[in-house]
């Protein structure tokens, strides 16, 4: 009888610890293989056959279709440069240059990747349409109220996610290295 109780306790601990820890790890953000530059994070190995088992499990659960090496690379920012979470309650300036790429797109979504319904019908900018300064750099105003220049509108007051996708970029073959990504600075909050 003692043995049976001990065995049951052991099995219960094994199941709770094993499945619980697996679930906890997969329910968090991708933790392995992240490369961070400023506020931006990329997962270059995500979706490659050499990815670690955790990334593979996470990929299968999310159903994501990550960019391949021959396509490009995606960077995600959930915070501004100071590390504070991006929120639709605040306005931000996204400024600077993107790393070398034949094409880039910048998209703003909520944390689930859903686009915002905005009167301006804009959910991002791409390299061909953005207004640039003389030196080729750009400034995007991420805000709820209309702004002059490159205005990226958002609605509501929830958390935001910025996704910068670089297509056909040398970063996928040479590594991210010292790549400089646009700065994200908070201006004001309501």
């Amino acid at each position, binding site marked *: 009888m*003692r043995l049976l109780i*001990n*065995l049951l*306790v*052991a*099995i*219960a*601990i*094994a*199941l*709770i*610890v*094993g*499945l619980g*820890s*697996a679930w906890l*790890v*997969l329910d968090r953000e991708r933790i392995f293989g992240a490369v961070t530059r400023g506020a931006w994070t990329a997962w270059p190995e995500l*979706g*490659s*056959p050499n990815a670690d*088992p*955790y990334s*593979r*499990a996470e*990929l*299968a*659960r*999310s*159903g*994501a*279709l*990550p*960019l*391949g*090496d*021959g*396509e*490009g690379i*995606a960077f995600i920012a959930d915070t501004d440069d100071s590390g504070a979470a991006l929120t639709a309650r605040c306005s931000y300036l996204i400024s600077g240059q993107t790393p070398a790429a*034949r*094409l880039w*797109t910048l*998209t703003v979504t909520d944390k*689930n*990747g*859903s*686009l*915002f*319904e*905005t009167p301006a019908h804009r*959910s*991002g900018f*791409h390299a*061909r*349409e953005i207004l640039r300064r003389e030196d080729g750099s750009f400034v995007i105003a991420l805000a709820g109220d209309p702004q002059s220049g490159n205005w990226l509108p958002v609605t509501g007051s929830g958390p935001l996610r910025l*996704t910068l*996708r670089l*297509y*056909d970029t040398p970063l996928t073959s040479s590594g991210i290295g010292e790549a400089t990504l646009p700065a994200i600075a908070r201006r004001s909050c309501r």
Partner: protein
Amino acid sequence: MKHLLLFGLGGLLLGGVIHIAAILLVPDFATRDAWTSLGRLGPDGAFHLLPANAPGTKPLTDLDPAMAHAACRFTLEEGPIRIRATMPEEFWSLAVFDRRGSNVYSLNDRTAERSDIDLVIATPLQMAKLRENPLAALDRAIVIELPLERGFVLIRAFVANPTLAPATEAALGAADCQASLTAPGNGSGTTGP
């Protein structure tokens, strides 16, 4: 009490084993993975447009709203497959994924050095046969060797502004996932046997 501690320790060790097994098995039992989601779009062996990522909809995956996407699930069990599409003169990229959603091959319009897609996917065995009896029609095709039984192809095509979306989507919709291996390639001027 000492016994209970010992069994507790054993439980912890077994928990570690269960943790590893669970992580490794997740891809086989996932129901929201890319392969399964794409299967809901329509039958295998043909390209299906992925629903555009629009405000108010729950996106299928983390797709770029500035791109149009089409995907085709394929099997190599009945022989090599050939993918052909006439693409607009804009950035496009193509990725081949295995059954588990890992990216095993990718290229873009510049690496392909052409604006139309003519890609043959073969297993190593089928590749050896193709080398023995080369098909003239595949002269200009990109032939890649992948050790897959099943997988899917995803084409991403850049839509520079919304007015171009219908043309891009039409091109993607007309993409052929089961093109004949012996049909002549564009511009090669040769005919198949």
